[in-house]
């Protein structure tokens, strides 16, 4: 089997040629330490400044509002731990949702142990949080609202503008984990009234191991890593120049071709969704329209996700699942349980995430390969037998 179809772009993406090309000089002769005063150091410093500018423009921020980190997870940790440290005198209450990435939810669990109080808001069957519910949850001691921009498992995009309005009006800081959304859908932090935003390079065809945090001017965040004076002394450690340059180029490229990519990928996604829904007892998870262009996610009754993923792998298709066996825990994905799926249905989840390198032939291939695999697994499944008998 020589054919390979990559349908796990929400996990990570193949680096774009422009990002790779932009990185190379900084992996070769451009090895100067950006803190050094001599020429190759100054060159590296200039590259960092340029990259900061590119990242800022891509999300409607100012250059000085961008801080480079090592990952989206790090950006999330920095925000949550930093805001709690800085504002604990004002209050100890944080608002979030049930469908956040573990980088948020597990960090908040940790903060709960340290005495902070977290309100975890429910979502509807599409995985959408209601702005009214956010408003109602705000208390005088609320110091932060953290709600993801778009969900990594089911693709649903949250009503960020409405939440931003509410947060600004009530004077509460608003952070969004936008790791899945940046570079894929338009984001303007000014327009959306976002105070803090996390992003990760490898989700928009930049390199793995680099992220950034947008911190609105005037928002005071304490240092996350102490040491040298890098990132204005807030995130010490010699900068990953090549990675940062690659991230900035990938993001600029993604934003420039966003309109075209969005249409193209959405069309492929909708073709895939329509094809999958032809199968018996398969349902779409997440919002049918207000979702990321690349994510097609499903619950397939009476089969287990990991078995499906392994069989897809044997057919040359890389995809993922939120089943317990895939997540490495005893429970299936908390996101799928939050939107009301039963454990049984959540075990049979599959996520196919497309990108601009996906072709229509790839989608056709997926739609050709999945039905016999589902049929084979169902023929083996005692649950399917019961369902058919009933």
């Amino acid at each position, binding site marked *: 089997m020589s054919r390979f179809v990559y349908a796990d772009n929400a996990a990570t993406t193949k680096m774009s040629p422009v990002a790779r090309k932009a990185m190379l000089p900084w992996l070769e002769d451009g090895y100067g330490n950006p803190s050094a005063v001599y020429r190759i150091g100054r060159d590296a410093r200039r590259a960092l400044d340029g990259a900061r500018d590119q990242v800022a423009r891509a999300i409607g921020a100012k250059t000085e509002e961008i801080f480079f980190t090592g990952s989206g997870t790090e950006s999330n940790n920095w925000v949550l731990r930093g805001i709690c440290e800085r504002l604990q005198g004002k209050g100890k209450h944080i608002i979030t949702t049930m469908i956040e990435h573990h980088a948020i939810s597990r960090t908040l669990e940790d903060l709960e142990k340290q005495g902070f109080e977290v309100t975890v808001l429910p979502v509807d069957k599409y995985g959408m949080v209601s702005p009214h519910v956010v408003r109602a949850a705000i208390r005088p001691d609320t110091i932060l609202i953290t709600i993801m921009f778009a969900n990594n498992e089911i693709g649903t995009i949250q009503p960020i503008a409405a939440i931003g309005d509410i947060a600004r009006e009530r004077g509460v800081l608003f952070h969004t984990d936008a790791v899945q959304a940046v570079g894929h859908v338009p984001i303007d932090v000014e327009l959306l009234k976002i105070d803090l935003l996390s992003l990760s390079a490898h989700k928009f065809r930049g390199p793995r191991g680099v992220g950034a945090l947008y911190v609105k001017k005037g928002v005071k965040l304490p240092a996350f890593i102490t040491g040298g004076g890098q990132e204005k002394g807030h995130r010490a450690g010699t900068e990953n120049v090549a990675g940062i340059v690659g991230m900035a180029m990938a993001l600029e490229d993604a934003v420039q071709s966003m309109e075209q990519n969005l249409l193209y990928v959405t069309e492929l996604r909708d073709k895939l969704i329509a094809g999958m829904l032809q199968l018996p007892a398969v349902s779409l998870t997440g919002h049918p329209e207000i979702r990321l262009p690349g994510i097609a996610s499903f619950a397939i009754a009476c089969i*287990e*996700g990991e078995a499906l993923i392994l069989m897809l792998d044997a057919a040359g298709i890389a995809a993922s699942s939120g089943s*317990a066996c895939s997540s490495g825990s005893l429970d299936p994905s908390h996101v799928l349980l939050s939107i009301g799926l039963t454990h049984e249905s959540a075990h049979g989840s599959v996520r196919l995430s497309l990108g601009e390198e996906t072709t229509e032939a790839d989608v056709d291939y997926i739609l050709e390969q999945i039905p016999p695999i589902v049929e084979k697994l169902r*023929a*083996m499944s005692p*649950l399917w037998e019961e369902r058919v008998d009933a």
Partner: protein
Amino acid sequence: MYSEKVMDHFANPRNVGEVPNANAIGEVGNAKCGDIMKVYMRIEDNIIQEVGFKTFGCGAAIATSSISTEMVKGKTIEEALQLSNRAVTEALDGLPQDKIHCSVLAESAIRSAIGDYYKRQGIDPEPILGCAKDCGGGCHHH
């Protein structure tokens, strides 16, 4: 993650499906936990003449079902009752730590089918088998 043996038994599972005129049927696990194994046997003259399975579960669940049915086929009831989850795991050249419960499930499914056979013969399986399946309740306890 998985050994070649596991992948082989997962991709080409042996003894899939029901057995005609089965006189021993056992089912263990539950859908909530993400794995169910159902084993069918035709036992004659104390020998497991035919055996088949249906499994809802991950790659390891399907592979352990496949190999355990292979291991008891043609064996006497007493021999089949000797089948341990460790033997199943070893026969697959090992399982990842978080999949060991699948081998436990396979062992339980075989014992459960034999328990069913005893019941059909009017023999109380409890003294012979002890508590054969899912006594603990809840999902996989490691």
